[in-house]
């Protein structure tokens, strides 16, 4: 190609780029692990947000302006989260962001959104620090790990009557935060853990750790972390002949947990804490039906993501697309979503927490424990 042709092509590309930006009326970022080991969660996040945006656009958009979604991939890595957050606010001109997924990504990214005056609504980051930072623009439509840890700890003490609890975490913000929250409530009940250790994210061999769990004779293994480590962990636990009850948090709420564990027999009896079934709200019936008609089961965080999008859009729509006013508005107004009416407190947390205990069965499905 001659130089002149190259230059012409570049110019036309630049013009085309500018044109797409001009057409984008309201840009909303969807940030999460779209690739990497946690991409299963990224898919839940994207499906929910995409469906919400389509439904809102079909109903006339935000005050007549259409939503354009921008996918931002952080792969659940804090450094990458910061760089995609900068890209979203600088070059994409996003007014709101639905995301991120992992707490270790959400926390550093939230500061960038705060400086840029962008609303951030996370569907899934449960680490307490996120909203305890006191940033005015940060909201979450899920619970907090201290609430989640409370539910797990009281279940272990009251329902299971367990005395020997091993606490394992993945040394990440979410996993360790959750394990610590559970541990402190457990200690408050007068039960001291028999073991407290971390494993390395990305490894698959936990046999040495499991032999140690066996050696302390634990009745209950509590794991703070995600399904990609929980799967091999529970499988190797059973392979070494331990019958300890395995409990984890909302980091394993994906069908992939079963395939990573190798077979449903290994996840049989695994307990996990997660918000009350997101599909149980009457206001979500229509959306859930449409998802299922399209051949997609809205599992895990899909509807949370839909809800997060509705919250962000409500804030923008009622304040002439001003995200800073929108953030203030959210703290005093409630929003009707597919998961019922949502109210936020001063910090941006939900006013009502609804964690319950679920159990996985031998078919690899989970349901609420009565």
């Amino acid at each position, binding site marked *: 190609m001659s130089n002149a042709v190259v230059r012409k092509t570049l110019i036309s590309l630049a013009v085309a780029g500018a044109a797409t930006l001009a057409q984008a009326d309201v840009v909303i970022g969807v940030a999460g692990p779209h690739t990497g080991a946690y991409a299963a969660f990224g898919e839940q996040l994207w499906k929910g947000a995409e469906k919400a945006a389509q439904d809102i656009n079909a109903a006339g958009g935000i005050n007549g302006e259409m939503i354009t979604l921008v996918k931002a991939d952080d792969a659940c890595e804090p450094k990458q989260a910061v760089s995609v957050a900068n890209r979203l606010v600088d070059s994409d001109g996003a007014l709101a962001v639905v995301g991120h997924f992992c707490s270790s990504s959400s926390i550093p990214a939230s500061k960038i959104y705060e400086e840029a005056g962008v609303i951030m609504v996370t569907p899934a980051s449960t680490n307490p620090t996120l909203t305890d930072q006191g940033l005015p623009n940060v909201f979450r439509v899920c619970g907090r790990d201290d609430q989640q840890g409370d539910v797990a700890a009281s279940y272990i003490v009251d329902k299971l009557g367990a005395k020997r609890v091993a606490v394992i975490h993945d040394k990440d913000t979410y996993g360790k935060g959750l394990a610590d929250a559970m541990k402190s409530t457990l200690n408050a009940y007068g039960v001291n853990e028999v073991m407290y250790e971390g494993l390395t994210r*990305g490894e698959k*061999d936990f046999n040495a*750790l499991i*032999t140690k769990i066996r*050696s302390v004779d634990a009745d209950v293994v509590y794991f703070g972390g995600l399904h990609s480590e929980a799967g*091999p962990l529970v499988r190797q636990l059973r392979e070494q002949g331990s019958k300890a009850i395995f409990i984890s948090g909302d980091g394993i709420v994906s069908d992939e947990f079963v395939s*990573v564990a190798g077979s449903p027999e290994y996840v049989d009896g695994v307990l996990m804490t997660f918000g009350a079934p997101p599909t149980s709200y009457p206001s979500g019936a229509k959306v859930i039906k449409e998802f299922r008609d399209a051949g997609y089961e809205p599992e895990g965080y899909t509807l949370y993501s839909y809800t997060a999008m509705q919250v962000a859009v409500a804030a923008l729509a009622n304040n002439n697309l001003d995200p800073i006013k929108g953030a203030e508005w959210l703290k005093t107004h409630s929003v009707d979503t597919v998961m019922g009416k949502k109210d936020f407190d001063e910090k941006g947390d939900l006013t009502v927490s609804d964690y319950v205990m679920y159990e996985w069965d031998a078919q690899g499905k989970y349901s609420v424990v009565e």
Partner: protein
Amino acid sequence: MDIVLQQLVNGLTLGSVYGLIAIGYTMVYGIIGMINFAHGDVYMVSSYITAIAIALISALLTFLGFESFLVVIIGTLFLTIVVTGAYGWVIERVAYRPLRNSSRLAVLISAIGMSLILQNYVQLSQGANQQGVPTMLTGALRFHVGDGFVQITYMKVFILIAAFAGMGILTYVIQKTKLGRMCRATQQDRKMASILGIDTDKIISTVFVIGATMAALAGVLITLDYGAFDFYIGFIIGIKAFTAAVLGGIGSLPGAMLGGLILGLSEALFAGLISSDYKDVFSFSLLVLILIIRPSGLLGKPEVEKV
């Protein structure tokens, strides 16, 4: 007592797999003096090939109307080793041979590039999700020791047998066959070997293929045992296997195997008896300590300046 024995079993199985992968690093270093950073990713590719092979062979067997674990596992081993070996050959041909006479740094960068290419190629073609393989062989041996027990799954027994068999066959090939003699000659002095009529380019290709087949063996064994993998698993295990190779003395074949076993055992014992948070710190401290005392590794020969 039962706990210590169980940790020894854990460490031996992990270490034998580290050893298999370390062989690829050490042989390539021995023969052309480069660190093949893409080797961990060759292992990762072999995990995917294992899953594909299992699916293909199981489907074929179902079609023919019978079921046999042995046929599936032997077929998978064969297919994975052949295909991964081909990957090893192509990688050497594409990324390293054109740089044969340039500086070591160029080959090193090329290796890092190859590693990124493999990771992204697998991510794009197979998806970024966690992949799982269904459990094929269940059941375990249980030995009662005192009032406790040591439990070894049949899969772990299989891993130990297959890994040591692989190492044994390779040692035989290198020590006793004509091909092995040519490899050793090329390793000692490439120019002299070529003057004496050895096709050194072919030998170097062969060494890459051998490294890849050992990584493939490890890939099949680990994939069948843990059942879970993604496109990024090559990184951590590659670093560990490289450490094992350095620990045993890079360039030395028995050193790689010994280094793998020591690393696996030290990780398991430290994690099991002291703390799993700091097991990597312990392994790497051990590496530093051994390198201070023996700079060329446990079984490595001190570098002789060639005049």
